[in-house]
């Protein structure tokens, strides 16, 4: 036996003997830098005989020591990759252990975790082992075991691999709830530099395909529903809130059961596909993508402009921002243009970007209201709404008892919930500052920008310098970005009622 032969044998032995726990550790560690872990965007009610459902608001099941929500089993199918993206821990030039799940092994793991209520579902991505089609086909193998063999009805988010053929992407789309292709870098120049194996067209082409398929499948579903309704034949049986048990519940001393659980009671719940003969749906929770922040010299303005484009062109449900965490030294990586290269700066930046993203999508802000080519950076000390308000002091202060809701939401510290509370409460009488406090409106920032019953808050001066100091000293007192961060993913995941 030659030496080469021996080595091969040993290698095979090592690969085979890697147990599932070791694989899980490696393939989780390889996936953990991906920011997306929400299970949101689709309602699908449970079906008799099938495991699982999906809830549009999303449900976290745990929080890791870094405070991030764990909703999905987030793993790679394989961390074996032939590409060499400088920002990625799985790049081919990096020396580290490689592992791959067997499709059934992964499917079993998902089912066992799901049955124990550890997870909402699966987030599956993969390194490019072999070629993009092969790597995607292995993901498809695992997902079709889950969906078709096991009838798994929970949430699945998959990453499409740039360069995979349209047929393969299409297969993948019908198995998952959300499908995303990572844009990775805010500009094609950065992409070219840091991910030389990927080219923009290999990213944008499948994004366009996914957008079109989602649209077509939605259209088809609508027509199908129309036909079904005209036949007036509603055979869908929902479970979990049947009335025949109410007697039992009363007997057990509990009559509160009429209260619906958080998501099973929503009227627009989608029954799962196959059982009702409903047409299969292509990525019903839509398309998302991720950008890495701070590995390239792109400014906040560049980043947000790219996001706006992505939302407009591809109907993205979400753009995720992921602060770059150094994974081995790559000379190609450039930090902040102004030379601040520490990690927590990138985390603050990530947080400010999420806040801005929020303003653009839910508060009707336009990008040029927040940033411009001349002022391309967000302020680490001020949240973007405060920044905007300070630049537009002529619009303030506004009177809380008269201002329309669109203006109220634009006040720093008052969000849609706060604005709604104010509008509700002021119907039964004008509000003063103590009434606002009773409504649990956080006044720390808002107080600078409002009047109540025509009066400005006592002891405050409506003047640029004073406001700036008031706002930033509060922020500085918080000392760290960490507290301020609670808004973003959290508020998305913890939607109450």
């Amino acid at each position, binding site marked *: 036996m030659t030496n080469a032969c021996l080595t091969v044998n040993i290698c095979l032995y090592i690969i085979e003997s890697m147990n599932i726990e070791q694989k899980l550790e490696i393939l989780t560690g390889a996936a953990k830098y991906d920011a997306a872990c929400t299970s949101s965007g689709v309602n699908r009610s449970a079906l008799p005989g099938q495991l699982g459902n999906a809830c549009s608001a999303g449900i976290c099941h745990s929080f890791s020591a*870094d405070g991030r929500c764990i909703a999905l089993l987030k793993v790679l199918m394989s961390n074996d990759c032939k590409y060499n993206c400088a920002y990625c821990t799985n790049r081919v030039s990096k020396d580290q252990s490689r592992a791959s799940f067997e499709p059934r092994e992964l499917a079993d793991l998902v089912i066992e975790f799901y*049955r124990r209520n550890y997870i909402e579902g699966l987030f599956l991505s993969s390194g490019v082992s072999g070629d993009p089609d092969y790597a995607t086909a292995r993901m498809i193998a695992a997902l079709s075991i889950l969906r078709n063999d096991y009838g798994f009805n929970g949430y699945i988010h998959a990453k499409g691999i740039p360069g995979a053929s349209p047929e393969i992407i299409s297969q993948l789309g019908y198995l998952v709830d959300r499908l995303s292709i990572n844009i990775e870098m805010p500009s094609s120049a950065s992409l070219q530099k840091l991910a030389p194996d990927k080219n923009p067209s290999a990213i944008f082409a499948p994004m366009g395909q996914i957008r079109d398929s989602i649209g077509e499948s939605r259209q088809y579903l609508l027509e199908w529903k129309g036909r079904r309704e005209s036949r007036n034949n509603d055979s869908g049986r929902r479970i*979990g809130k049947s009335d025949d048990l109410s007697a039992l519940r009363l007997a057990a001393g509990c009559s509160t059961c009429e209260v619906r659980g958080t998501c*099973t009671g929503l009227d627009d719940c989608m029954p799962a596909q196959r059982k009702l003969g409903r047409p299969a749906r292509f990525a019903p929770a839509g398309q998302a993508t991720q950008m890495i922040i701070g590995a390239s010299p792109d400014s906040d303005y560049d980043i947000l402009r790219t996001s706006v484009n992505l939302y407009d062109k591809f109907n993205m449900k979400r753009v995720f921002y992921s602060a770059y965490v150094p994974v081995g030294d790559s000379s190609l990586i450039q930090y902040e243009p102004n030379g601040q290269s520490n990690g927590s700066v990138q985390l603050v930046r990530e947080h400010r970007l999420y806040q801005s993203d929020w303003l653009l999508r839910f508060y009707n802000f336009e990008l040029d209201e927040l940033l411009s080519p001349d002022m391309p950076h967000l302020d680490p000390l001020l949240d973007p709404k405060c920044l905007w308000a300070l630049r537009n002091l002529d619009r303030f202060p506004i009177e809380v008892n008269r201002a329309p809701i669109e203006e109220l939401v634009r006040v720093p510290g008052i969000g849609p919930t706060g604005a709604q509370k104010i509008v509700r409460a002021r119907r039964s009488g004008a509000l003063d500052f103590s009434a606002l406090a009773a409504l649990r409106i956080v006044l720390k920032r808002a107080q600078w920008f409002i009047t109540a019953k025509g009066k400005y808050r006592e002891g405050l001066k409506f003047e640029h310098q004073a406001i700036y100091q008031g706002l930033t000293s509060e922020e500085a007192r918080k000392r760290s970005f*960490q507290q301020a961060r609670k808004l973003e993913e959290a508020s998305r995941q913890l939607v109450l009622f």
Partner: protein
Amino acid sequence: MLIYTYDNTLEGLLCCIFDAYTRNEQPDNIACEQGLQYQLEQVLHPVVTVEEHWSRVRKGIHKKMGRLAWQKICACYCASTTDKEMLIYRYLRQGFSRGRVALDDISHPDILPIEELYRSVGMEQQRMIMFVRFAKVATTKSPYSEPAHSKLSTIPVPSSDPKSNSGEIYYATINPKHNVLPLVMDHFAARFNIQAFIIYDEVHQIAGISESGQWMLSQVEDAQPPEVSLDNEEYQDLWKAFYDAICIPERINEKRRQQFMPKRLWKHLPEMHPSRDAKT
């Protein structure tokens, strides 16, 4: 002092409202029949739970205040605060006399407490949906048929339905601040309709039992957790391995973790179990 006593059911509480209106009086307090300490100067009125009465009140709530108000009352009734009866009573008084406008006046002293309680119960409900952790229970002999757990013999054990995965039972213990088990059973029963399961609330000593999408509640004292099946440890270890691997050490943020996952709930989370930490 006028005290109404009732039978500790939501129906009973609704009958208190009914009596207050028909007798045209204002109780100073509403208390549970059991465990009431009688004091001098107290006038007791034991409220009798009558279906005709509570169903009229319920209809009235739906009509005058809407579905959301009814939902709030049900949720607040599950709160574990001692004054919830009076809070609900005062809220309903407002609602009946002034209609929906009153309920929108959320800074009003009779309305605000219910709004806040509703938030608090809702938060706890959400937390249970997140943090219930099932363990697979030994399949061959049901833990409930053993004499050692005779107290539990009142729990109807889900029979092992051959269709529903070979008669396994999943078991979870929870320790919620409010009595939210009734509020989360719909969710779990639907999601896990292919598995028989029991969720035991050790604080309020109540068990939710579900099979094939149907569920019921049962009052149980001091249930002993049944023995878990062999492969359960294995999956708890795998889950812990995943939990540790998903963390980005550069971003450690203990405060944030505890804000979302309060320490009081860690005891039933396998990923937070100290013994498992020592093992890995």
